[in-house]
Structures are given as C-alpha cells and as structure tokens.
C-alpha cells in the first residue's frame, strides 16, 4: 500500500487559466524519500501543499495511508510539514514550539515533555529548549523544525525546500544530516527542491516536474542515465546533457562521456571537437567547444576527469569520441526518448591524428 498517493490530481487557479497541477499520478512506498524536483513554477510546491491539505484539488484525490483524505483539513491528515522558512513560532521558546502539536492533539503534559525530549535528543538540540527562535542559527532552526515535525509521529513528512535558506557551506552538511535523520526515523518523506544535485543526493526516487506534470519518476541513477525526455535530460546533471540535432532526432550524451578517443573503448562514435574555452573545477576540466556531427555546428561541453591527462587547449581541434552505448536519442518534435537510430550519415573521422 502506498503511503502517499495522488490520483489524477489537478489544481487550477484563476478560473482555469493557471494550471498549476495538470493531471498527476504518483505513489510513494513505505519509508521512501521521494523528491519532487523542478524549476520555479513547475507545480511542485502546489503539489506538496495539496498533499498537505493547504490547497484543495480541482480534480482528483489525495490518499494518505490508503485513505482518501481529500476534503480533510491538514490537521486531520497525520502529516508533518516543514516550510522553507521553518515557520517557527517566534514568540514561543524552542520547547514550546516542539510541544505545540502535542498540545493541539490533547496529549497531557508528562507525555508531551517526554516526546519532546526524545525528538530533541534525536536532533541534538535539548540544550536549546529555553531559547527563542531569533536566538538560533539557521542550522539550529532547521533542527527545531524537524523535531517539531517528528513529535506528531506522522505518517509522512512534507518538506518544502528546507535547505534553501542555509548558506552554501552549511547546506551540504545539513543535507547529510537530513538524510541520516530520515533513514533513522524511517518515515516516508516527500521533499520539494529546485536543486538537482540536492535531489540526486537525497532522493530514493525523484519525480521530475515541469508545467504541472511529472515527466519522469525514478531512482537517481535512472533519471540520470535514462532520461525520459529532453527536459529531464537537461535539467538533471551539471553540466546538463549535450543535445545535438540530427535529422529527426536529437542526439544526447552526457559531458563525462565525451572524451578524447583514446579513452573511449569499444564501439564508439568519433567526434571532432573544436575547443573554445576551458574551466577547471575541483579537479575536472570542463571543455567548451563545438562539434559537427549534427545538422549544424553545435556547442557542447565535455567533462574530463583528472585521470584523463590529454593536453587540450582553446583553439585546437581534437579527436573525441562517445561510447555508442552512452548515446541517447530523443524525438526532435516532442522531446521524448526514442529508440536508437542508425547514424549512417555521420562522417567518419577525417584523418586528424588518427
């Protein structure tokens, strides 16, 4: 039984003119960490809020724990939510913040304190009980928000971009903590973010969304290696997948698969790369250049790891190659993934150094 499920969900605003969610079917497994990933305005936050009960769907149903909860207010759904701003009650102490849901549920004092201590202990914030939110750092606030979410023993955690407000350095350690926390507690989690590296790092499965629709749902490996369409292909991965138009199809290949020929074993597609510029990032070399295997010269990026020491300089032309098994094909019109086509029309490598 799926813990959280949405069926045929639609949410329209403004009399149908804005279709924030345009027909979504999604289901989570027990204890799963599902990430809703997409650019600003794709509907991921609206979807989260609809699951929470903060928005009523125009069509379709939300199910939590196997029950249809459409029509129930948030507090009847046994969920916990953490907002981007953490929404800590500014006038209450940390302890009062954490016990608030328990008081609302009518739990009596002794049991409340016990649970608060347990949750705080899990997150290492017992020493902050007497403080007020404005006296806490960003990371501490996040932990208080998580503790407050935890005490209700919810069926599902809903998290809306909780790492966006942290500075970059804090973000990676917070991300790690978050993942470990979720694995320890084992609660099904739905997590919204626009940051694809965050999604790849945190999610058991990722639902890539745009324009109110889910483009693809799958494990990080899946959405990375086998993107369902060009949107997913270019949204996931940094730098994004290269796309070269070739007749009816778009040829897709990841930057790390475009390497100097000598480093590509097996069946491969030869590519001549005219190098324009280079970037050095954390040991990798990002090579920006153009290739001519398509209908017209196309700009691409190649990512050379430190182990590839072939000298490459701007202004040069080099023989690169792509392993054929790494090529992906997309329909030019719709952008969806198609079966591989024969590339008979490609020029063989002209005698440059071969």
């Amino acid at each position, binding site marked *: 039984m799926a813990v959280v499920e949405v069926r045929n969900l639609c949410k329209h605003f403004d009399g149908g003119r804005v279709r924030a969610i345009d027909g979504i079917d999604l289901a989570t497994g027990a204890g799963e960490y599902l990430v809703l990933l997409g650019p600003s305005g794709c509907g991921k936050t609206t979807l989260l809020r609809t699951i929470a009960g903060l928005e009523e769907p125009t069509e379709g149903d939300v199910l939590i724990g196997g029950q249809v909860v459409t029509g129930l207010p948030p*507090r009847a759904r046994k969920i*916990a*939510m953490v*907002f981007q701003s953490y929404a800590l*009650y500014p*006038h209450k102490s940390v302890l009062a913040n954490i016990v608030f849901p328990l008081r609302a*549920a009518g739990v009596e004092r002794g049991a409340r304190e016990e649970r608060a201590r347990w949750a705080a202990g899990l997150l290492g914030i017992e020493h902050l009980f007497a403080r007020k939110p*404005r006296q806490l750092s960003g990371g501490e606030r996040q932990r208080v928000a998580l503790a*407050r979410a935890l005490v209700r023993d919810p069926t599902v955690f809903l998290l809306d971009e909780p790492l966006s407000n942290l500075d970059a350095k804090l973000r990676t350690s917070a991300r790690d903590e978050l993942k470990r926390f979720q694995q320890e507690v084992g609660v099904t989690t739905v997590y919204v973010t626009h940051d694809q590296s965050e999604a790849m790092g945190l999610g058991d499965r990722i639902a890539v969304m745009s324009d109110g629709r889910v483009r693809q749902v799958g494990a990080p490996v899946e959405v990375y290696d086998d993107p369902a369409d060009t949107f997913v292909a270019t949204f996931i991965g940094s730098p994004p997948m290269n796309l070269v138009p070739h007749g009816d199809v778009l040829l897709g290949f990841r930057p790390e698969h475009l390497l100097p020929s000598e480093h590509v074993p097996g069946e491969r597609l030869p590519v001549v790369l005219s190098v324009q510029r280079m970037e050095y990032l954390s040991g990798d070399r990002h090579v920006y250049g153009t290739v001519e295997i398509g209908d017209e010269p196309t700009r691409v990026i190649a990512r050379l790891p430190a182990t590839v020491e072939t000298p490459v300089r701007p202004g040069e032309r080099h023989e690169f190659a792509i392993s054929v098994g790494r090529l992906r094909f997309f329909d030019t019109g719709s952008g969806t993934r198609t079966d591989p086509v024969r590339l008979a029309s490609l020029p063989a490598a002209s005698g440059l150094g071969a």
Partner: protein
Amino acid sequence: MTAPARRRLADRDSTLGWLFLTPTVVYILALVGLPFGLAVAFSLSDVTGGDPSFDWVGLRNFERILADPVFWRSLRNTFVFTAISMLLIVIFGKVLANILLAEFRGRWLVRFLVLLPWTTPVALSTLTWLWLLDSVFSPIDWVLRRLGLIESNLFWLGQPNLAMASVIMVHVWRLVPLAAVIMLAGLLSVPKDVQEQAAVDGAGYWRRMFEITIPLTAPVIAISALFGAIFTFTDMAVVYVLTRGGPTNETQVLASWAFFRGIEGSDIGQGAAIALFLLPLLLAAAIAILRAVRRMEVS
C-alpha cells in the same frame, strides 16, 4: 591641482537632517509648545471672558476645581468612558478586522458600509444619533416597541445610566472602524507560513487565534487600544452634542467640562486648569502602552 570637491548641500547628511527636521520642530514648538505654556499660565491666572486682564492667582483655580463635585464626576466619567470604550473598541475592532480580511460574497459592500462611522465628521454623525436616541421619536425604540420588547420609549439620553451607555455606544460606534483598519494591518503582517504551520501542526481555528495570531499582533492591538483611548479621552464633541454633559452633569467628562467652564462659563482660568488634568493621565496611559508594546516586539 583641483581642490577637493566639497560636498554639496544636498549631500551633507547632518545638515540635511537638521534642515528637514527644523521646520517641523519650530512649527510645533510655536503652535503647540507656546499655547501649552499659555494654557498653564492661564490656569494660574484669573482671566475670564468678562475680565481679560491677566493676574496671577496661584493655585486658586485648582483649589476651586478640586472642591467642585462636578469636576470629580467628570474625572470619574472620563475614566469609566475611556476604559469601557477601549475594551469594546478592541474586541469589536478585532472581530471587524477579521471580517474585513475574510473572503465572501459581497465583501466590497460590507467593507464600504463598515467604514462609514469613522469617515463622517463627529458632529454630524452624533447629531444623527441625537435623533436615533430621542425619547419620543427614536427609531430604535420604535423597533423595540414593534418587537414587543418595551412598552414605552427609553430615555436614552435622559436617564443617567442609559445616557452614559449612549455616550459610550456612540464613541465605540465611531472608533471601531479605525481600530479595525489598524488591526487589519497587523493581521496582514503575520507571516502566512506561520499560520499554515499551526494548521498543519493540528491547531484548530480558536487555538490558532489565541496562541498564534493574537500574540503576534499584540503590539498592533495595543496601538489601536491607545488610539481608541486618545480619541475617547480627549473628545468633547460627542458629549457636547448628545447630552451636553447632562442630565445634570452625569455624563460630563473633563474635556467637555473644560469647554463649558471655559467658553460658556467664560472662566478661562478654570477651563484651562480643568483641561490640564487631561495631560498627565494621557501621558501616563501612553507611556504604559508604548512600554508594553516595546516589550512585546518580536523581531
């Protein structure tokens, strides 16, 4: 070669600051400070309408006032009116603020209608109430008679307790829209996600109201209480028009009594002395409320 460019006047912050502030300060000193000083002087003099010569008489005016039972009556009334009005204004204002904020059909019309009491000059709206509370023709009594609730008309403005209630009612009626708009601003500034968080955390309507919204808007509620107090405390128009302080000074307040003694009684010294009592009380209340607001501020 070139001399260092001197900052133009329009750039010199400190000069600009004083330039900006001085006109206001001078204006207020001249037209508030000076008259205030004069009023204090008057209270210590024997100036009357008939005898405008200025002679110092020390605290004689104050002695006369303190011996006057009407003064004590006025003082008591001022407190009672202000306290009760403030309470009612805050409660009704909060309810009205919520109504103004809510979405429902016809809310434009309701918003328009509900603002009317504050937008009318006090003299005019109070005159309307003069008829509405008339002992013979009152439409309110007419409705009550038709409903069978009363036999003969009530002396809204003639019977002491009813008269006080009437004065309070008109004050409250007039000021609730103002309080509502002030509190509306406060309500709008409560971050939306804090309220949604409370909803997700399991809090129902009343818990959200009393544990989240009201504590977070407490400063604004205090400010609207303060404005309500100021406008009630210093108002003489309602009493002047509605009851003239009657019956027999039962509804007299300090502000109206000062006016009656000073203008109609022509005793300017006494009028000023009575009015002076308003100031320390108002200052004390204002300081208390502003201190409370500062403590309540949650950043």
